[in-house]
């Protein structure tokens, strides 16, 4: 059984239809990249899978759980148990240091554990930047804090929306290498939205969105 399954997923906003009957299955542990032009519906698809947005019609099943129709609070509980997020902007709390930003995710999940948060930051190569505030970190370092925050609760699914969109090529490579290492070690599922052809080549599968539909679905060689 697929880890993620979308059936005829449609999303209609007041002025536009972002998704038009999308059917998609993703296996457990797969790294799927979603590409497509702006307005093609790739971020909406990611948000629907992550429960940040609801479908107008159709349904979504993740890890055997039907999430369509869940209340916002139930969806929040589902997210903290099973999903980690990385966004294009780092969205770190400016007055908390790196460790505290990671612990924030633990706080909403269960109990904060500083040692565990420090360990997570060491795994993303930030053992020397633990007490630095976001403003004292580079863009690449901030994004690595976000990855540590997303993975601290051992989610089965990591959703990344343009995680390297604000980074230069060198930092992009560092982030992707890091994601690949963690993916191979922990076997969580990754769905990554990007419009960068270089980034889209990292992973095992690419789907191309256009006008709210999946235009192309291809399996690639895992770099």
């Amino acid at each position, binding site marked *: 059984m697929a880890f993620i399954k979308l059936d005829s997923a449609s999303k209609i*906003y007041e002025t536009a239809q*972002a998704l038009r009957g999308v059917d998609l299955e993703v296996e457990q542990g797969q790294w799927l990249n979603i590409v497509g032009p*702006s*307005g*093609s*519906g*790739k*971020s*909406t698809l990611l*948000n629907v899978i*992550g429960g*940040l*947005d609801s479908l107008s019609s159709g349904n979504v099943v993740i890890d055997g759980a039907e999430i369509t129709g869940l209340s*916002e*609070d139930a969806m*929040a*509980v589902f*997210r*903290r*148990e099973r999903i980690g*997020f990385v*966004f*294009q*902007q780092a*969205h770190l*709390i400016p007055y908390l240091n790196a460790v505290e930003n990671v612990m*924030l*995710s633990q706080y*909403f*999940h269960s109990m904060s554990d500083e040692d565990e948060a420090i360990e997570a930051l060491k795994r993303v190569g930030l053992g020397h930047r633990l007490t630095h505030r976001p403003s004292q970190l580079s863009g690449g370092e901030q994004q690595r804090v976000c990855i540590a*925050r997303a993975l601290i609760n051992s989610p089965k699914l990591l959703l990344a*929306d343009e995680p390297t969109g604000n980074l230069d090529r060198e930092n992009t490579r560092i982030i992707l290498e890091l994601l690949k290492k963690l993916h191979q070690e922990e076997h969580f599922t990754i769905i990554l939205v990007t419009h960068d052809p270089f980034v889209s080549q990292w992973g095992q599968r690419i789907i191309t969105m256009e006008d709210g539909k999946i235009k192309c679905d291809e399996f690639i060689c895992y770099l």
Partner: protein
Amino acid sequence: MVFSVAIGTAMAASLIALSMDVSSKVSNELRAFGANILVEPKIEGLADITGQKRYLRQDDIVKSKVIFWRHNILGVAPFLESEATSVFGGKKEHVKLLGIWYSKKLPLPGETETFEAGVKSVSPWWNVNGAWPDSNSRNVAVGVSFASRSGVKKGDSLKLDGADFVVSGIVDTGGAEDDQVLMDIDTLQEFKGLRGKVSKVLVSALTTPMDEFAYKDQTTMSKAEYEKWYCTGYVTSIAKQLEEVFHNSRVKPIWQVAATEGKVLEKLSFLMYLLCFISLSASALGVSTTMIMSLLRRVDEIGLMKAVGADSAKIIAIFLSEGVVIGIAGGFAGYLLSIGAAKFIGIKVFNTAFEHRAVLFPVALGSALFISLSGMVLPIKRALRIKSAVVLKGSE
């Protein structure tokens, strides 16, 4: 934000402090309008039918300072009324005599201290051009109307029932006394052979405003109700207690004074509580507005919290905990400010500082928490409506 809470709390706490003390302060000020209790001899039976004169005992006056509400008795003035024929410049006239004390120190029963009795304590507006008659001389003061009609001047000699008296002053009270001849009560008692007797006593007392319970018929009260009534400083209960210590007396409130006081104090208290509510509401609105402004700066933060799994309860808990911290800090600051504010208002308005009350601390803290937590309601509602997908990226 703590400043807004502190200001609102200080306003509310100082207004509450004022409202707790304002009744006694204003009541004290209103005492300048005169006595509010009249003590008269009880006239009943045959004396009532024949119109026979009855008197109170002068010795009972000090007993007004031994009743339960003795500390509320601010002024006591005995009067002895009589009549005489005056002769001045060959002109005879029938005049009313009024025996008074202007200001006399009386010993407090069982204590070494004294208290001041006399018209000065109940009718401070009485004015004399010259000197008040004292008990050691044959002096009289004549009312301004009498002096004008008869041509009597200060220093003149006036015959009353054949006895010589010297006019020490001309009295202006604005009342019936302006047409009378006033002398020291002891002198009049001696002169008329009424030693130790007084016709009436006016009492000026600090009272609790009359409410519905105060007007209840005492004969229908239960024991508990009667005790509550007796131990509340209503003008009626103080009158009852005075009646118990003045032998053979009838004590009644002077209603035009007592009722006016009650109404003024009632309206003043209502005004204070209204201002208190308005200041609390205004501060809560200020906190709410500031918090919403803060929320707008923290939209990303809240969106992120929701994305990483914060449900409504967690978001509410975060805002409420901030509200509690702001409330406690603002409460402390507001309490300290309110002490100064209440003192300042007390000195400026009543020439005396308001008493510092420990109960104001929990009141200030409670007010601050009310301001900060009620100010959080709108921001919390708005925070719960934030969509992570929109604020963290924007929808396609």
